[in-house]
């Protein structure tokens, strides 16, 4: 019942000052699709809510001259999905963003929020990890940039220090021969939290041999995983049956899931292998595999 302050900083510096100056718990508001639910359920009791959407940098999605992208933390999935350039370059990354909830949620849920909610099942995260994305964090000591996979340290917990917040993301230019994909398993066709999510980014040489690969799994461990053995299983192959079987096994071996209302350990583990194979197949097609 305690009253909550509401602030609308216009600059990163103001936001950092507000975060740092907050006597108690400060919460960043971007899309609000997690925060408002938690607020209502009294899972969080902030003293101040800081709406970062008036900071220009958090709201812009820019394709840079080198083909890379800078994406504001408060950009919503549907806003990215409306952009032809990024959708063409990184369809898997955008798929992950656009799978966050319903049409209504997609219009609000932000990339920064989906990451910083620190759920192991966040749909945006595996594809961002696979694509090698990094985050730009602002704080009292200035800025720092770290890989996406380093942000979440435990379910519901990030590595952000007091006074810090995620301002934007960096997405590399699409490499030559590159393709990516994100797949998730949900019981229905929409409106569910991922039981397993899998992001894949890879590159093929002109002969169709996998040159590089990064495979990431969500909802099978406390945080989103990077499965190096899965990448190793397919690098240097033409994704023949043996390579795919090895990839499947590597994905399953990496899983450390829990039993809960959304899936069993056994189910999640098996599905990680299935989605790994399927996502790699899609990513390879997008990379030009015939």
């Amino acid at each position: 019942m305690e009253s909550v302050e509401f602030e609308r900083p216009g600059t990163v510096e103001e936001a950092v000052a507000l975060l740092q100056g907050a006597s108690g718990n400060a919460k960043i508001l971007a899309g609000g699709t997690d925060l408002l639910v938690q607020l209502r359920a009294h899972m969080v009791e902030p003293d101040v809510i800081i709406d970062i959407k008036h900071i220009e940098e958090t709201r812009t999605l820019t394709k840079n001259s080198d083909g890379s992208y800078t994406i504001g933390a408060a950009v919503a999935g549907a806003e990215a999905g409306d952009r032809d350039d990024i959708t063409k370059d990184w369809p898997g990354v955008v798929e992950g963003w656009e799978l966050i909830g319903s049409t209504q949620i997609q219009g609000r849920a932000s990339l920064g929020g989906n990451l910083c909610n620190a759920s192991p099942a966040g749909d945006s995260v595996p594809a961002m990890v696979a694509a090698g994305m990094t985050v730009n964090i602002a704080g009292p000591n200035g800025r720092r940039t770290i890989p996406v996979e380093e942000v979440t340290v435990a379910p519901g917990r990030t590595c952000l220090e007091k006074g810090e917040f995620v301002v934007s993301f960096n997405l590399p230019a699409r490499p030559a021969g590159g393709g990516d994909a994100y797949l998730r398993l949900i019981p229905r066709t929409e409106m569910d939290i991922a039981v397993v999510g899998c992001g894949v980014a890879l590159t093929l040489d002109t002969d169709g041999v996998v040159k590089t690969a990064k495979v990431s799994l969500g909802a099978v461990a406390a945080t989103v995983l990077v499965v190096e053995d899965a990448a190793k299983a397919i690098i240097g192959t033409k994704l023949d049956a043996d390579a795919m079987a090895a990839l499947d096994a590597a994905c399953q071996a990496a899983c450390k899931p829990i039993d809960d209302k959304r899936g069993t350990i056994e189910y999640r583990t098996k599905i990680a292998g299935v989605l790994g194979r399927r996502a790699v197949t899609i990513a390879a097609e997008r990379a030009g595999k015939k």
Partner: protein
Amino acid sequence: MAKHHISATLNGEPVEFLCSTRQTLLDVLRDELNLTGSKEGCASGDCGACSVMVDDRLVCSCLVLGAECDNKKIDSIEGMADGEKLHPLQTKFLEEAALQCGICTPGVLVAAKALLERNNNPTETEVRYWLAGNLCRCTGYDKIIRAVMSTAADMRENAK
């Protein structure tokens, strides 16, 4: 702290309201502005009964704070008809019995209108996925999907 004084445009008219930080846009519409057409079915963004447009984007008003709405353009079900003239979707829903109890209907209509404004020739699959966030427990969705598709067909015909 004191309540926030918010100025916005609601269904084409200027509106001012006071709200606390915790009040959602849905709370504001229903409790402060006495517009009860937007419904609360879950308060967690899972049912879509509170769907409204904010700055021309479809959102769940239960997941937007009233305090965020300063200078925003908000459109709710109450603004969908043009005076006495129903929107074509509203007419089609009546003609094709695309509602039973009617609790989800305002949200479904707002969402369907948003779809048709983006895409006046959606496939059945596109309509189904666009409306996946609008739960309806009565109709099995069949008549809703048909009504949206047939409104789209009418709109394309009229645009010729």
